[in-house]
């Protein structure tokens, strides 16, 4: 089975992909291909960003980054399924799993596309805060595009279904997306570090302090010389 070819055919023809998901065609094959591609690409990106400090950090990030996205998916998937069932959806658990894995694959393939850019800045710029902010922007951008893909897919599936209150169903999806983002960012904060801090010894985890949003604000103000 050529998993990468399956991913590329899905990216090129999303309409056909969604039709197949709706008709439950080849769901198992899709799950395996999307899982293989997303785990591999995320591991590769983790390896690159971890390589900015220590080889142990590279290995650690290669395991933690796919873990971050896939564990977030597993944590949030049951709530998505139950929310959708309560609002009258006839789709099964596997269909939602395929959609979420497709979202993760979209994010992972875009992160893969940014690997040369990240490597370039890793080699040419010796500023840890800049490198960290660059990656925050990349993660945010790929996350927004992935979430947008998921929302458009759900919108498309709802438009073809027999649901009577489509706008309420979409509001439920929007609320769930907020939950997904919140769980993902908190898990990312718990699993840090992904980059490693220059001058500090390798650490598998940092102590739990503050939160992700406060930390990014502090990093931004520090980079702009405001504190």
């Amino acid at each position, binding site marked *: *089975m050529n998993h990468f070819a399956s991913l590329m055919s899905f990216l090129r023809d999303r309409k056909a992909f969604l039709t197949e998901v709706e008709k439950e065609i080849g769901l198992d094959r899709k799950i395996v291909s999307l899982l293989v591609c997303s785990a591999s690409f995320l*591991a590769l990106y983790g390896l690159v960003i971890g390589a900015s400090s220590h080889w142990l950090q590279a290995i650690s990030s290669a395991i933690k980054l796919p*873990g971050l996205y896939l564990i977030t998916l*597993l944590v949030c998937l049951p709530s998505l399924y139950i929310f959708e069932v309560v609002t009258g959806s006839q789709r099964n658990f596997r269909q939602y799993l395929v959609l979420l894995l497709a979202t993760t694959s979209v994010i992972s393939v875009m992160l893969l596309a940014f690997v040369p850019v990240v490597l370039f800045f890793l080699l040419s710029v010796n500023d840890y805060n800049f490198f960290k902010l660059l990656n925050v922007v990349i993660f945010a951008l790929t996350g927004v595009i992935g979430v947008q893909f998921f929302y458009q897919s759900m919108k498309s599936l709802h438009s073809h279904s027999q649901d009577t209150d489509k706008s309420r169903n979409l509001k439920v999806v929007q609320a769930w997306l907020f939950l997904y983002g919140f769980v993902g960012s908190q898990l990312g904060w718990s699993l840090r570090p992904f980059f490693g801090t220059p001058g500090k010894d390798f650490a598998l985890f940092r102590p739990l302090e503050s939160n992700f949003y406060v930390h990014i604000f502090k990093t931004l103000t520090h980079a702009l010389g405001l504190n």
Partner: protein
Amino acid sequence: MLNNVAELPITPAELEQSGGLDLKAGLVTTVYRGVFWRNPQQLRSLLFIEVFSLGLILIFVMPVGFLAVKRSGNLPSDGADIANLFLLFLAGSVLILALANIWLVNQAKRWKSVAKLLRQVDKYNRVVKSLAMLNQLSRTENNLQGDNSLEGEKVLGALRVTKNSLLQAIKIEIIRTKQGVMARPDELMVTLENNLTSLVAGELDPPTDQYGYLLDEALQIAMSVEQQMRDL
């Protein structure tokens, strides 16, 4: 030049849709062919599956495991102790994988008949590949050796019939294996016999050229499928 050769190969998607070869069936037959027949291609697939599965288990187990240990206040700060904890998680992941493999090998023994049919599918796809290559050659050689399209069309027809036989047999065998049913539907045997008859009728003379050999191969595959269905 032959058209529609591209439609002939039996793809994994077709095996799943028309043959009913889902993820579990595909996995156990890969295990059977790799472990019991030492098929190199299946062994390579199996190795990839094992390595990837270990990586996937680690991806889920390690972050959650370390977070749980950290939450309990027992996370070691010493590098050597962290490494030992990582090795413990790795050993746990290998154990989970080993148990899954034992279960798979036990399951795989029931899928011998489907694995035999999949071996015929590989053989069939090799014949189709040979036909595609011959088709390519005939485009470049043009009419120097005369028009082979009639022979080619015969092979095309034979392969279509063989494809139909293979997919039907696989579908029925998978249902039989999953449900533990012994009896084989009479309609399947009638279909296979009719397909075989039409193939034999098309091959009256011994093969003298490459198309003839391919036609003979298609006939051999169809005969093997029909014989296997009778024997099992």
